[in-house]
């Protein structure tokens, strides 16, 4: 296809690379965060990290839905899965995330009925097909995924499917970014914002980063050239002393997002006072729970869950990786005790995790252009 051929030919890539080099303000070191794990993978898959000019560093962000779920919530999921008569449904990526008492996969080997689903609608279908069983759906994800859970809940209510409930772990993208920018340990000059979550939220959720923090943001698509172009847009803003929210991914993302999707979330969910994130601690107004009207479909109201905050495995540095202050290869267990086959932390489990990206694409040491933090 056109883009990839041009990218492969190296001509357009090297043109963009030299534009990037020229755009770099001299003598400055710039750190840009790619918020989304999908971007992290595209960057390493296509070797974009090797095209960076001197002084430009990419920092990985928290945009990996599986990675940010803390140990305590995994333990809650395992407890729910072990309830009698329950079919516990989950996206495949969550199956192998270790809790303090094992993963959902371990729970399955202990007799729990844990099943992978592709869509929350498939979980609802299971409930319909098994009226004598209780089906719980482990809902995770940012605003990209929350509308799907929301519509599924509305269908469950409309169709009176009472043996279906949702263990809601949906999160919002704005508050963790605020927490990361507020943290004194990391200096960030600009953000490459995730494309598909922005298709739901619109680009305006990032306005506060430009307005209150004076950092430029560019919403980017997932193709290699999208990412290179968005870096160029950020560097140009920084060189000119501008801090604006720009949208590189105009073919999908609109300023106002997808109003129907936002409305579905609004109808079914509300903000929790605070939600615990792996590595980021408790962040106010960052997690969603089901509204009171949907209490009958809320697994947290229908079952006892431990609800305890549990610290990460001692050797695991996922928390620091998610905050951008440790590179995966700096973690002591990376590629040794912690591998995709036998993961200790979420960043190695998820196909969007930064550690998995480094591992799969053979990055075990700093590449040129990166600055060790």
């Amino acid at each position, binding site marked *: 296809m056109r883009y990839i051929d041009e990218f492969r030919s190296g001509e357009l890539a090297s043109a963009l690379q030299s534009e990037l080099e020229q755009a770099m303000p001299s003598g400055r070191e710039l750190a840009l965060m790619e918020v989304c794990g999908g971007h992290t993978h595209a960057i390493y*898959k296509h070797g974009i990290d090797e095209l960076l000019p001197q002084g430009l560093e990419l920092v990985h962000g928290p945009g990996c839905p599986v990675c940010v779920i803390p140990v305590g919530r995994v333990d809650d999921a395992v407890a729910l899965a072990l309830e009698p008569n329950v079919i516990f449904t989950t996206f495949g990526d969550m199956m192998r995330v270790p809790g303090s008492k094992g993963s959902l996969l371990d729970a399955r080997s202990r007799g729990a009925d844990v099943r992978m689903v592709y869509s929350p609608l498939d979980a609802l279908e299971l409930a319909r097909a098994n009226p004598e069983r209780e089906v719980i759906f482990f809902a995770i994800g940012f605003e990209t995924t929350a509308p799907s859970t929301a519509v599924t809940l509305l269908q469950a209510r409309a169709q009176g499917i009472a043996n279906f409930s949702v263990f809601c772990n949906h999160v919002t993208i704005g508050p963790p970014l605020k927490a990361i920018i507020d943290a004194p340990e990391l200096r960030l000059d600009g953000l490459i914002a995730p494309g598909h979550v922005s*298709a739901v939220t619109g680009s305006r959720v990032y306005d506060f980063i430009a307005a209150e923090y004076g950092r430029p943001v560019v919403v980017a698509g997932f193709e290699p050239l999208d990412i290179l172009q968005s870096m160029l847009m950020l560097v140009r803003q920084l060189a000119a002393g501008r801090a604006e929210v720009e949208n590189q991914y105009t073919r999908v993302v609109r300023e106002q997002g997808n109003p129907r999707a936002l409305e579905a979330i609004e109808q079914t969910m509300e903000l929790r006072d605070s939600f615990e994130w792996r590595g980021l601690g408790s962040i106010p107004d960052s997690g969603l729970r089901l509204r009171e009207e949907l209490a009958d479909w809320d697994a947290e109201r229908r079952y006892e869950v431990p609800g305890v905050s549990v610290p990460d495995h001692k050797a695991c540095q996922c928390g620091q990786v998610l905050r951008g202050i440790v590179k995966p290869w700096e973690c002591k267990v990376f590629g040794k005790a912690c591998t995709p086959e036998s993961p200790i932390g979420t960043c190695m489990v998820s196909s969007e995790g930064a550690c998995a990206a480094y591992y799969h694409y053979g990055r075990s040491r700093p590449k040129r252009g990166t600055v060790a933090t």
Partner: protein
Amino acid sequence: MCLGIPAQLVEIVDRKAKVAKAEIGGVRRTVSCALLEGEAQVGEWVLVHVGFALDRIDEEQAAETLQLLSDMGEAYERELAKIRESAEGAA
């Protein structure tokens, strides 16, 4: 997980319930069109995420994105495998 995959709507299964069948990388599965503005039409290209059409996209972009996604290899293959598995039970 936040990956949206371009798919073409090939059949409207239930107009009122906003259920359509989409063809995704050679696999057909039912998707919900409840998040789309207006009525879904056969032939339209949409971005599919966990069984929902998240938004419409135009055909040319869809083709380019699909090619790039398949070139991404593993992540795309994994997403497609999930859809394929789910389609066996749900289609």
